[in-house]
């Protein structure tokens, strides 16, 4: 094999393969989207989300197709809720649990 063909086979062809792969990696990527995954300890900067099975049926505040779209979610506040008579009543005892990780 001549020197020219040796260099061609052992240097130019492998290098061009490496370059093609590197170019594909650089072009591919995540189409500009940020990493969606949550990792403990890393900052979590997504907007708050609230899921319900069928929001429109549960509360008109979530404005489903069937309900009044102008309804606004009630403001967060108050440890007391207003009773039907207009008097403020303590809500019933709620249960549950808390945890940290």
């Amino acid at each position, binding site marked *: 094999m001549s020197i020219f063909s040796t260099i061609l086979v052992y240097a130019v062809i492998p290098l061009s393969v490496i370059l093609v792969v590197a170019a594909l990696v650089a072009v591919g990527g995540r189409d500009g989207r940020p990493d969606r995954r949550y990792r403990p300890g890393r900052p979590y900067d997504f907007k708050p989300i609230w899921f319900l*099975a069928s929001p429109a049926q549960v509360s008109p505040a979530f404005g489903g197709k069937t309900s009044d779209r102008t309804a606004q979610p009630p403001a967060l506040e108050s440890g007391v809720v207003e009773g039907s008579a207009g008097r403020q009543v303590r809500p019933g005892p709620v249960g549950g*649990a808390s945890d940290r990780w």
Partner: protein
Amino acid sequence: MTVGEHQAIVSGGEQPLTALDHAGGPTLTERPELTMSDSGVAALDGPFTTRQLLRLDEALRVADQQTGLTFSVYIGPLDEPTRESAEALHRQLEGAAKAVLLAISPGQRLLEIVTGAEARKRISDRDAKLAALSMAAAFAGGDLAGGVLAGLDQLASHAGRH
């Protein structure tokens, strides 16, 4: 399934004006936002993939149907004191007595499960703590969607059928 077909089903037989100029078009997995409400599109920007959102939706619906309770999942920051703000979120739900709220704050690395007065009779605080433990274990491993699914599943099976 294409967007046009989905809209035809949702609108009940009568073919609506679709976002498409011709039959067919992008499939639902390619362009899921075409069939969604504004809040649905907003959820796509969240920490979940489309597939995870679909599984969450399914899990919530199944839990609601099986138990007759209203399950709800909030993922976002909670104001201090966190327990009180989770309970305030829970009170916003219509029929709060029968509602179960899973409030998860990945930023603060804490979660709160709030059960209404009626729901508490079916899901004891100990059952809720068990679900909270398995959720926290999944979250500590970075599996947000898996933890929520596991928690919903446990709470629903503790509540039993209605």
